[in-house]
């Protein structure tokens, strides 16, 4: 096939009935502030790691809520734990703790 340099977009449909929400539930169990997030993106705006790569705590949380456990776990490793996001979060989400929980889940939840 001729390579045009672009291709049709991958279908990205999430069926929430079949999504694997085990990680979301597990994180919620250990840190309920996970649920307080309003996806404002302040965390991503201040992120130290975000200056160098495409990393956003908001997106990681989003992925977990959609059941995309693998991508969330892989992404979470980019965090430097510097703690700026915790200080700017208007909803007081305990961001560093959630990152640590995701990293811990890496040992138990990895599909």
């Amino acid at each position, binding site marked *: 096939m001729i390579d045009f340099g672009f291709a049709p977009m991958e279908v990205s449909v999430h069926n929430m009935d079949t999504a694997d929400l085990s990680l979301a539930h597990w994180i919620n169990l250990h840190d309920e502030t996970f649920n307080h997030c309003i996806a404002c993106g302040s965390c991503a705006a201040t992120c130290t790691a975000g200056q160098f790569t495409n990393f956003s705590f908001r997106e990681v949380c989003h992925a977990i809520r959609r059941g995309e456990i693998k991508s969330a776990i892989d992404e979470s490793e980019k965090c430097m734990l*510097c703690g700026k996001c915790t200080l700017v979060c208007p909803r007081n989400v305990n961001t560093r703790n959630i990152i640590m929980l995701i990293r811990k889940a890496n040992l138990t939840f990895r599909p």
Partner: protein
Amino acid sequence: MRYHPFTLPFSIGLGFIMLYIIVMWTIWIVRLSRREQKIVWKRLFSFRTISAIWESIREGLLHRNIFKRNVLLGYMHMSLAFGWFMLIVLGNLEARLYPHGVINPPYYPIFFEFFRHDLTPLHEYEEIFTFLMDFFLLMVISGVSLAFFKRFRSRTLGMKRTTRHILIDRIAITALWFIFPLRLFAESVTAGLYNTGHFFTNFIGQWVIYNLPLDYLYYPAWWAYSIALGVFFITMPFSRYMHIPAEILLIFLRKYGVKEKESHSTFTKIELSACSRCGICIDACQLSTSLNISDTQPAYFIRDLRYSQPNERLRETCMMCMRCLEACPVGIEITRIRENERREHPLFSASSYGYINGYKYPKAKVAYFAGCMGHLTPSVIKSTLALFDAANVDYTFIDKNGSICCGRPLQMNGQVEAAKQLIDKNNHLIGESGAEVLVTSCPICAREFATSYHLAIPVLHHSQFLLELTQQKRLNFNQSGLKVTYHDPCELSRGLHITSEPRELLQHAVILSNGSKETESKSLCCGGSLGITNISMAERNKIATDTLNEIVAESSSYLATACPMCRKTFANAQDKIKVLDIAEILEKNLNFAPEKVSEKNQSPIKQQAVIS
């Protein structure tokens, strides 16, 4: 008569504990690394040994560090340790001065009054020995009474909370508490019958318990005393009281230069055994005083690590603020041990930050590094740079376009492999920038640069650098007359021991007023700590407000701090007092002398430096 079966419990106990101590000391010393053994041998016959002996007496017997904390608490520990020690020493002297010769079985001096009722052969020493033995017994009894009292009203002895002990500790402490009243009873019975005591035991024997059937109580009393001693000795190695022999070895090894390494070692084992679980760390910990989390402090963490493994909660619930380290009377490297324990649970891999590619810091002479937290408080950066400008410093703001985290937060959470990548990256980039001095306004970064980076250039916190500029008269300030309370950030005061520079600097522009003794090395944490992840923002704010209530003097207009993170945390938590970084306060009071201004405007050299 030189033997009686009642001495058996004591003798068995003593034999066991002596053997145990010798075996444990040998194992510990043999298992030290080659290098450590070498330095111990090399320094064995030096002044360090004398100073270690002195420290053993000062801390092991007299408990000076606890005295400094609270006189009554110090007296309690001192009376038990020093009083008992003197009883043993004097008992031995007494038994050896007795004309029957100096060779005695070990139990003989302990139960001397049982074996010898007629002390007249001691001649002129009789009076003094019986007096001193009674005096020190009274001293120990007073200590035991205080210890007993402390169980119910610990506040009187300066402790809000005491350690909750496990079974083996309870058995050992009960045996210990029984030893001295039983000794008093046995000696008083003997004194009542044979007049062997002095002002204390004679008085009790002949005036208080004289109408008890002393003849019948004589043997049971000595049996009970011996059994209490035996039980204490048998439980000692498995309980908190192992700290007695372990602490002595610890003091010596520490003096010879042995210390904690990057991971647990044999020295850690000695340190763990040297913890007496006295509980002083519990009151020092703000998690306990502000949040009522009183079961994760070093006393418990070290206990669990000594017997098995501390659980995840115990390991992670600590702000790493080092207040316990400062308070510990034994001087155990608690924070280091906890960090090493966290290291055994890596969560980030060694290739997490491969994405930082092709990033560069600009060429610099004086490199200013704002750090992550600095970028979160742009006003701090602005003020710091304005001061640099005013002093005509040829600086470059190297992380203007984004800083790579220094690695300290990861390191505090035990993620060393991950931290190492950031350290290597930063190290390389700072080296490439050609900087001759690195200035940062973040104490967290400063600590990490100074301790983990092995940079060839000096690392200065902005307070140090600004003070230097002020001393060189490159900066002038107006004395505003405002009263300001200065808060010492943990990483700066306890981590880098920088406490006088920020104060000296501030005094050029404001008047310092402190409302608390909890300053400098004892300073309180703001609660924003990066060493802990499992407390909520509400809890952090509670710590911040408690800290402010404690330290801010009534008359203060501002709270000054030297850490952008503390500044942010304090500002977020309350709006009672305005929080400013020292650089901001100084910039407000900057005095541009006329000639200085013109000099500044005609400084083409600096302009060029910035452009290039």
